[in-house]
């Protein structure tokens, strides 16, 4: 029988995501995700409906003000479905970064009492929202039937954009949750930051609306992803592979630097949280 040997000493070298370790702790990640879902569904009256209400009501209001009054184009598709296809992913993204950035502080009780790779905490927090995404996409299907939009085979690539968004949310979550342990300012800055981000991401307007600022917009990794997500679902719009590729590169950079930063400060968490 081979024996497990644990060696404890000060860590010094640069570390990124340890996928093997994450795999070993997959059951714990699943438990955390299950817990978050169970708790939320038990504490709310309409549970899963919230996942629909939030993007749906935002879509209705945006359709009225931006689509109807301000006459912002949907780039060739009806504005309600145009904005909903964006809001669906945007809601997941903002929900995931909010949940993960607060997750370490919320788990202080665990961090000071039991060992497991700390990075599991912000990771689990980004997974929970995927269920909401699935629930809310039922409305999208309804809208597509209503507007008789026939998707092309590109729709099978939608998971790619979802995974990119997930990776981006994790990367940002690693940064923010780790900073939040030391500086609670994050909790105040984030809602404001998310609000601003909505306006520099083509969620409620097509990126074609600002041709002169195209390059600047593309520096926001969500730009390429949101555009591609929408184009892949709705079929009629062209997918800008260049911007999507640029987004993917930025996502990888944020994910790797985020995990390295998280790993470099995680040893102090239990002492300062």
């Amino acid at each position: 029988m081979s024996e497990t040997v644990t060696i404890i000493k000060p860590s010094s070298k640069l570390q990124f995501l340890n996928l093997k370790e994450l795999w070993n702790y997959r059951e714990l990640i699943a438990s955390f995700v299950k817990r978050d879902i169970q708790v939320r569904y038990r504490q709310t009256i309409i549970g899963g409906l919230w996942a629909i209400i939030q993007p749906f009501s935002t879509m209705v209001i945006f359709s009225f003000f931006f689509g109807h009054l301000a006459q912002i184009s949907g780039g060739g598709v009806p504005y309600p479905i145009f904005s909903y296809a964006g809001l669906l992913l945007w809601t997941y993204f903002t929900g995931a970064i909010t949940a993960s950035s607060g997750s370490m502080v919320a788990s202080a009780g665990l961090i000071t009492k039991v060992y497991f790779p700390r990075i599991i905490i912000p990771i689990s927090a980004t997974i929970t929202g995927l269920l909401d995404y699935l629930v809310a996409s039922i409305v999208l299907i309804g809208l597509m039937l209503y507007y008789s939009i026939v998707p092309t085979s590109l729709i099978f690539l939608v998971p790619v954009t979802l995974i990119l968004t997930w990776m981006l949310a994790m990367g940002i979550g690693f940064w923010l949750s780790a900073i939040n342990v030391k500086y609670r300012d994050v909790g105040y800055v984030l809602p404001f930051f998310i609000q601003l981000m909505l306006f520099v991401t083509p969620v409620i307007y097509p990126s074609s609306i600002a041709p002169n600022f195209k390059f600047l917009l593309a520096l926001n990794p969500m730009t390429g992803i949101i555009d591609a997500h929408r184009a892949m679902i709705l079929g009629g719009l062209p997918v800008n592979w260049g911007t999507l590729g640029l987004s993917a590169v930025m996502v990888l950079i944020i994910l790797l630097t985020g995990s390295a930063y998280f790993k470099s400060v995680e040893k102090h968490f239990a002492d300062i949280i």
Partner: protein
Amino acid sequence: MTDIAIKVENISKKYQIGENKTYPTLRDKLMELPNRLFKGPKKTKEFWALKDVSFEVKKGEVVGIIGRNGAGKSTMLKILARITEPTSGKVTMYGRVASMLEVGTGFNPELTGRENIYLNGAIIGMTKREITQKFDEIVAFSGVEKFLDTPVKHYSSGMYVRLAFAVAAHLDADILLVDEVLAVGDAEFQKKCLGKMDDLAKSGRTVILVSHNIGSLKKICTKGIIFDQGVNISDLLEIKQAIQKYIKNGENIDGKLPKNITYNDEIIFDNFQLQGQNLIYRPSFTDLEKFEFSIRCRCLDETQNQDLVLSISIVNNVTGETVIYGHNHLYGVIMQTNKVGKISILFEGFQLQPGEYSVYLESWLDGQYVIQQTLFGIFLIKSSTIGSKSEVFNSFPSQLLMPMKWSYSK
């Protein structure tokens, strides 16, 4: 395979103690920057919780870590449990390690007992299969069968800890790290917990136990190691020897006690005195019946007339419990800061269990917490007697014996 379970080599752990304990904000850090450029880095106090600790535990040994509050016992356990990282040194552990630093870590009040068993089990390192296998055993041990599908927020605190302990007790590991979880639940369940701990200890597992309760250490452990001010002052000893040495050691510590306690040069507490019948303030005294603390209080800014509150706590160094606590408001005494005052606190007519006690002071000015708990004395009670009979107080269930008037009539 070696016969060594845990090898600790030159472990040290340093903490930085900042000026204030509140969370630093980004603004604070930014404001600090100019200061840092011109005046050099801000001086933070360093505190070595552990310094150069080395020891070895063989497989199957049940080791109690003994030491007074702040000796580094819990820090050592946290390093072994990988909760915090050592500043230097190395630990090697052979076998599957599990820690029980708290019962019910991660319990969620909204979830049912059943769900919490799975969640808590996963958190403390059990696989889903293991939990399923042991599920019935866990439930039977906890005695909460009827409420398995009730959210634990509706549990009584007794049921809660029973379920939590039950999960932890069924964690299968070669090395178990345990901290103070013994004292949970009612007396009957405590007995059951101790029994379970004893079983675990006798089943050939290696156990490291930190407990304030010398009694349970004596009962469960085979070996003991003494920590004092971040250093292990002994190697692994037989448990009885270790406890003896610990108590003996307690007698010759020179109190590195403050001569005065100050706050911002506004208030100075000094001239501490402890007087009593048969009382020697450090090293020891016996047969305590009456003792008096006196403290001089000087306030340098006599123009300000603020409300001063001083509290005193007497803490048992072995159990960590606060045995006596009080402050001047509680006894209807108002103190003001515009004069030099002499505060005297008289305790009378009770006895304390033999053991080592610390005296702590805290202070408030106009309701603002200004002096954090500061140690100002250590005293030792060697032996006490109860009433007129000279029964030894040792196995007395309470720490404090109060004067009571009993009568009996037919």
